[in-house]
């Protein structure tokens, strides 16, 4: 039994860690803008392609930071171009804009790559295989959850202790009041997108070191799953998103182990619906009621 379970848990925890890094981006944006940033999964994919093209001509030590920089710039640009002009528009319009951006990014990547899968460069240390008990795996599998936890602890500290963190909390509590209190809403939102994109870039490096080919639509599914993870954990809550992501990653792999492979994706959504029905605020979410 342990022979079966160990590899399954290993890849579950690893996938979970990667989902977590994406989920944090979703949960932060949702917490502040009340927007499901459908384009977040595509930003994750774009980070993968940045790496593919940069590593072809630059050494890793240069391309790695450049990838993160470019991804952050992309996330920032998407917010400025597609979401900022709609700040006073109904929520549905912003969500449609997000869907439009996702459509655009996917088509753009399809065009640039010619729609073919690209091989992700090998990152020496991460891609090395090591043996664990009866099975073996890449180092990245073990490294991912560790890094995820370190990053999320850092992020939680940032939000608890720093001035920008306090501003973020204020904005997510009450948009209008925070504005009246002199908080620069736009910079807070930009900061949120920058952090989210940064984590997506890190997640992308880990993800593609493990699964080494990048296609234009590859980010869509992990993106949706990460969003489900964020809802599961209670949207707006960072520890919630991380825990939700690990739960989904592990469950998904157990389902595959049991042979119900057709349903590995569907399961995530079933979980989402169950959560929404029985605990709409997720594990750690707060209840918000509308004033009449």
């Amino acid at each position, binding site marked *: 039994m342990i022979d079966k379970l160990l590899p399954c848990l290993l890849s579950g925890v690893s996938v979970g860690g990667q989902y977590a890094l994406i989920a944090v981006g979703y949960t932060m944006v949702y917490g502040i803008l009340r927007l499901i940033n459908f384009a977040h999964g595509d930003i994750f994919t774009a980070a993968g392609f940045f790496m593919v093209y940069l590593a072809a001509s630059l050494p890793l030590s240069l391309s790695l930071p450049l990838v993160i920089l470019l991804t952050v710039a992309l996330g920032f640009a998407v917010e400025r171009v597609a979401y900022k002009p709609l700040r006073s528009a109904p929520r549905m319009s912003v969500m449609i804009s997000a869907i439009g951006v996702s459509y655009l990014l996917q088509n753009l990547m399809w065009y640039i790559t010619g729609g073919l899968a690209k091989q992700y460069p090998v990152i020496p240390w991460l891609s090395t295989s090591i043996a664990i008990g009866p099975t073996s795996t890449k180092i990245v599998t073990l490294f991912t959850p560790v890094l995820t936890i370190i990053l999320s602890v850092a992020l939680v500290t940032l939000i608890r202790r720093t001035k920008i963190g306090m501003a973020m909390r204020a904005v997510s509590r009450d948009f209008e009041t925070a504005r009246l209190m002199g908080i620069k809403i736009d910079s807070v939102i930009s900061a949120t997108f920058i952090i989210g994109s940064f984590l997506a870039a890190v997640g992308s490096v880990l993800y593609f070191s493990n699964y080494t080919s990048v*296609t234009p639509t590859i980010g869509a599914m992990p993106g949706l799953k990460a969003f489900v993870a964020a809802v599961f954990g209670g949207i707006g809550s960072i520890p919630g998103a991380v825990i939700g992501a690990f739960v989904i990653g592990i469950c998904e792999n157990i389902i595959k182990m049991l042979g119900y492979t057709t349903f590995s994706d569907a399961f995530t959504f079933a979980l989402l619906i169950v959560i929404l029905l029985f605990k709409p605020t997720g594990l750690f979410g707060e209840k918000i009621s509308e004033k009449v």
Partner: protein
Amino acid sequence: MKKILALCLVLVLSLSGAAFAQTIKIGVFEPASGDNGAGGKQETLGIEYANYVVPTVEVGGETFDIELVIVDNQSQTDKAVSAAQSLVDAGVSIVLGSYGSGVSMAGGEIFQSAKIPAIGCSCTNPGVTSLCDYYWRVCFLDPFQGTVMANFAMDEKAATKAYVLTQLGDDYSTGLGFYFQRAFAALGGEVVAGEFPEGTSDFTAYLNNAINDGVQVFFCPTSTTSAALIIDQAASLNVPFALMAGDTWESSVILEAAKGKNVEVFCSTFFDEKDESSTIAAEFVAGFKAWMNANPDKLTNNGGNDIVAAVSALGYDAYMVAIEAIKTADTAVPDALTLILPSVVHEGVTGAISFNEIGDANKDMAYIKKVNNETGAFDFVKTQSVADLG
């Protein structure tokens, strides 16, 4: 304003048909993007080379230029419908392709309703021809290919248990997997099956299941996109079994993925460039290589090297069969080609081609190749025909 614009477009489109009366159009219905983009490009190369070799055809005493109308079906059945429609709209006489069975089946429906014949190059699912009266093909079928690989697994790898992994919604993958499974079970072997949805990147769960089930071979007829991931992950898991697949895996994508890794990969295919027994084949290989090497774009489309893929040879053969049909019918009217195709016989690069009543080529030879992990090339293992199988 919009109406006027539409009207102009209608006019332009209808005129364009009349303006170039001296050309015959042949549609190339291949994926240039998506999961099967790499293979589709290689098949298109074969057709383009054939067009380079035979650019004109004599019909009714006049010489006609042959124009290739190339569309991208994006490896997806819904996109294939649009692509097929644009071929029909362009007024092609006959269609060649496609790499991938699902898109061929989807396109076949459109060609059938437009009454335009099509010749499949490397689509191996039986449904392509059996469900469409306007489809022929120049390659062998999955029931044969599956049986060949099942026998190979039994005989050469002494396998008693196999894991079969197929992609949901991919007709090629499901079909070949199904026939392998049936043949392997008929030979007394035991099969464990798994499916993965499109866009899967994590195959470790399937590989681990296979390890735990103690299989000796892992049969995964998938697109090259998934193949690269499967090979990489199998290598990092140090799997104790061999990976086996069908014709799609004869691709430089596989070679790149398996190079320098500790994993055994076998695939069956239609053709071997090193097989010098046929002069037609030898001539083709030499000419094709020279043509590609003279043109960097073509070389890129072939995956960056000048290894001749079997699908290129099939694309070449399909084009030649089409030319043969036009010559015999002495016209390029689709209806006439449809009537003449069943009787066309052609000595092709991949062997003699003649069609049975369903529209399939009477072919019974498969080549089995193995990836050489050190050189990053295919090693020829053996040929196998239905007769060998007894």
